[in-house]
């Protein structure tokens, strides 16, 4: 034993000299896993327009991602989705439905206050939900809220987790929430300063305040980020793989659908075959790996595989030969125009690549960023990690609702099984109105002193858990 100690001492004394060097080396490769620090100002930027902070404002489609990110900072929803996509209590502690899944009773968490000190009541919740969902019949009942709808809504708890269903106290044009932050300054469409609520029911956020610059382009954001003026910025898909000077990149699961959406339904069987051929002609893998630097995954279905488990069943590999066979003998009357977002450089390359792929299969399509093209390259965020909710929302956004699917979903009184969901999604795809291309990750570049970042699946940022280490970036 004594011999061992002596040996240890010898080793130690030899190694002591190298200690400083060793710890320095470790510093470069390892980062301390410290407990979160309180305090500091988190400076972020958001590209999308945010004309209004009202999460129920459905008119603002283009800024949906942005409002989804901001809304949970100011407002709470009755439920939240956990990492498995299952509804968990938030403002509602418990819920139950009747047999038909048309009437739901949600018991509210007691003692919650809005940021102005008003107590959260069933009346306030009901009023807020009515604004967001005019079709629902919402009524308060004691400390519970009753939600009734015409059709069965087995996914209501998951739906209530959507940021559009945030509980908002609307008082004389002011929007008051029960969220972790309050809006200290609001320059509509330009900037938002949030300050942490000390009395937040789920614990005060770590940072003291959050400054969000709104409507900044990704390039502008990155410039500010590299100059150290911002702590977190959104990254364009193609930027995500590159190294970010002075920071790190956090990627989400592929939660954004890149797809070709046709402006009108299939007018003839020939057109349907042409669209099918186009879907087969596109090499999604190269689009993903080369153009977007593997920022996503090739998509055959509307929802990603991690959400459904069956997405691989939809064809997504290019098959130029089969594409030719399918539309053989069909005379395409005129070239289709493919619209894309001009402000997105990657979208242009993707559109041009699609055109090249289509030409290989003998399909005539031209890139056209102008308004009202035959088909449009769109990016749609999946609002929920609940597959059914996400699919419903997608169908709504893409105008894909078919009578069959509506009937099918209205008849379901419990959550649809995966097989049901597959059938519905397959029906949507059979309309040939949409050709899924990729599921993209969303990425955020963060300064080195930003910790605890996690992005919820619906695109919202879980900023209350973010903390800033005292070290300078």
């Amino acid at each position, binding site marked *: 034993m004594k011999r061992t100690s002596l040996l240890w001492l010898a080793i130690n004394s030899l190694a002591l000299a190298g200690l400083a060097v060793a710890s320095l080396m470790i510093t470069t490769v390892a980062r301390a896993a410290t407990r979160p620090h309180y305090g500091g100002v988190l400076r972020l930027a958001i590209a999308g327009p945010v004309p209004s902070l009202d999460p129920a404002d459905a008119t603002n489609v283009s800024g949906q991602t942005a409002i989804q990110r901001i809304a949970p900072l100011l407002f709470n929803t009755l439920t939240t989705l956990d990492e498995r996509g299952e509804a968990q209590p938030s403002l509602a502690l418990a819920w139950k439905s009747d047999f038909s899944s048309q009437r739901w009773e949600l018991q509210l968490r007691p003692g919650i206050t809005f940021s102005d000190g008003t107590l959260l009541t069933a009346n306030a919740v009901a009023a807020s939900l009515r604004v967001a969902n005019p079709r629902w019949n919402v009524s308060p009942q004691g400390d519970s809220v009753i939600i009734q709808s015409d059709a069965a809504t087995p996914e209501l708890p998951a739906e209530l987790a959507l940021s559009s269903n945030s509980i908002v106290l609307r008082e004389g044009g002011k929007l008051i929430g029960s969220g972790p932050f309050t809006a200290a300054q609001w320059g509509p469409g330009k900037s938002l300063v949030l300050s942490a609520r000390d009395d937040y029911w789920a614990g005060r956020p770590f940072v003291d305040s959050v400054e969000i610059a709104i409507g900044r382009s990704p390039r502008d954001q990155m410039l500010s980020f590299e100059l150290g003026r911002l702590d977190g910025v959104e990254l364009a898909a193609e930027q995500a793989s590159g190294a970010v000077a002075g920071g790190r990149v956090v990627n989400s699961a592929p939660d954004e659908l890149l797809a070709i959406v046709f402006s009108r339904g299939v007018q003839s069987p020939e057109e349907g075959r042409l669209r099918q051929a186009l879907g087969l002609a596109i090499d999604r893998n190269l689009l993903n*790996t080369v153009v977007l630097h593997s920022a996503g995954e090739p998509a055959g279905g509307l929802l990603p595989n991690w959400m459904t488990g069956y997405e691989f069943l939809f064809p997504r590999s290019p098959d130029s030969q089969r594409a030719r066979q399918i539309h053989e003998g069909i005379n395409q009357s005129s070239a289709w125009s493919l619209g894309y977002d001009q402000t997105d450089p990657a979208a242009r390359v*993707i*559109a041009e690549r699609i055109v*090249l792929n289509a030409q290989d299969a003998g399909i005539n399509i031209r890139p056209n960023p102008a308004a009202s093209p035959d088909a449009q390259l769109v990016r749609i965020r999946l609002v929920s990690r609940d597959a059914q909710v996400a699919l419903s929302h997608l169908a709504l956004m893409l105008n894909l609702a078919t009578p069959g699917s509506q009937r099918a979903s209205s008849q379901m009184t419990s959550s649809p099984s995966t097989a049901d969901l597959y059938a519905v999604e397959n029906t949507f795809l059979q309309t040939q109105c949409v050709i899924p291309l990729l599921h993209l990750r969303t990425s955020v570049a963060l300064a080195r002193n930003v910790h605890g970042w996690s992005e919820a699946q619906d695109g919202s940022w879980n900023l209350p858990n973010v903390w800033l280490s005292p070290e300078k970036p």
Partner: protein
Amino acid sequence: MTFRRKLLVIFALTVFISVATVAIIVSVLARRAFEKADDERTAALVAQFQHEFNRRGEEITARVAAIAASDAATRISYAFSRGDKDYAPFLGDARTIADNQQLDFLEFVDGQGTIISSAQWPAKFGYPDASLPLSQPPQNAFLKKEDLPDGEALGLFSIRRVEAGEGHDEAYVVGGSRLDKQFISGLELPAGMRAMFYENFNRGFSPQSLIDPSGSSQDPQKIASFVQHVLEQKQESTTLIHWTSNPAEDETLHAIPLRGLDNQIAGLLLVGSSRRQYVELRQQIRSATLFAGGAGLLLAILLSGWAAARVTRPVEQLAQAAREVALGNWDTRVNVHSSGEIAELADTFNHMTHELLEQREHLVRVERIAAWKELARRLAHELKNPLFPLQLTVENLVRARQQTPEQFDEIFHESSTTLLAEIANLKAIISRFSEFSRMPQPQFHSLQINDLVRDVVKLVRAQLQGPDRAAIECTMQLADTGEIAGDPELLHRVLSNLVLNAMDAMPQAGRLTLLTHAQENSVSVEVQDTGTGLTPEECARLFTPYYTSKGHGTGLGLAIVQSIVSDHGGTVSVRSGPAQGTTFTVVLPRNLDKLREQRNENQV
């Protein structure tokens, strides 16, 4: 046309033709000079373009060579020689490098021509670019058509192999500049010229393929056929383009085909030279000509007027004098204050009138003598005829007194009758002469000439058909002559004389025709007979008093006729020939003014 006018016209024409000729010559010379200058400018521009083209080519070649030697190119070449065909790391490289090197086109391709990274069409990675001459990459820059997502473009390209050391697969850098407005704008153009570029994509003429830095909003279709023509002929050509109806907008277009690497015509350099200067010059020449011509004409008119006046005044005086002479003013004289031929002419004229006057007087004198001789002869003849019976009768009485006084009484009675008859005859002769000398002035009355003719015919009709002579057929052809003013008595005598004359001319029967004609200001009466006719000499002397071709008569009849007709302001003429009969034509002015004058005089 007067002489003066002729002179004016000749002067003006001369001036006009001279000015026009000068203008045409100046215009032609100007056009030639302009075209020559135009050709020179075009040639200079083409040379400048070629120079610029070559300079750009060298610049591009240098840039492409620099890129080929850069680390980026080596990295790409290295990555692809390892066999991992991953385009992702290089997707944006071409664009970035192209931006840095100020190239419009940049592609990295592997040995097979597969695009690794493309600046102009980033999405085309992995696709082959078949148009590249990789087997024998040219050293210099070359023209090439480049496919772009939104169509085609023409560019000046250069190609370089990436020098990445041994053991590496081949990789090439293909870079270029677009032949666009900027490229063309870089050319320094003289005023009035412009350069355009037509990209030939073998699709027929397309206005979009025309690069026109001047930005003129003209109708490109107007040059479509010219462009097509040059592309078909494949050689330089020039044409004149009428952009609008305004000739100043016209443009001379010179097309120079530019050939690509495959020796096909990749594009056309179109050098446009505005015709504005030329047209304006031509306009100025035209205006100057018009002004000079106008002024010249005016001056010519003034000068020629003055000159013609100077020249023609004596001539006019002469002409006037001649007219005077013609009117009978034989003593007219011309006073010409000039010299030369005109003065000589005037002298000659004056001499001529003088001579004429003298000749006439001489003639008058001679004729008067002749007339007097004739009168004397006729008087002697007329008086001798009765005197001879008187002499015989008196001698008979004397003898009867002497020989047979018994019978003397009887004889005396008889002889005194004869004597009285002859004396009466003598008296008649004398009264006729006296009557002729006392021809009264006509008293104008309104009358119808046809009525007079009918009256005369009515009077003589009995004689015409008389048993003592051969019958004469009388016909009248009377036109509607209308009213005239004349003395009915005198005119009746005129017609009677003429009819009796005619009857006398037809002893062996014949036809008498009386015709009236109406003219605007006159009426005429013709009296035709089918008698023996007259010789020209007889015709000439017919109206001479006391001349007669007949065996009887005083020879005063026609003289009286002429005297009366003349007093009426008319004329009488004869037309005859031997065995052709004779026609007398009396032309009488209507003299209606005389009627008014007479009425006025009567009123006064």
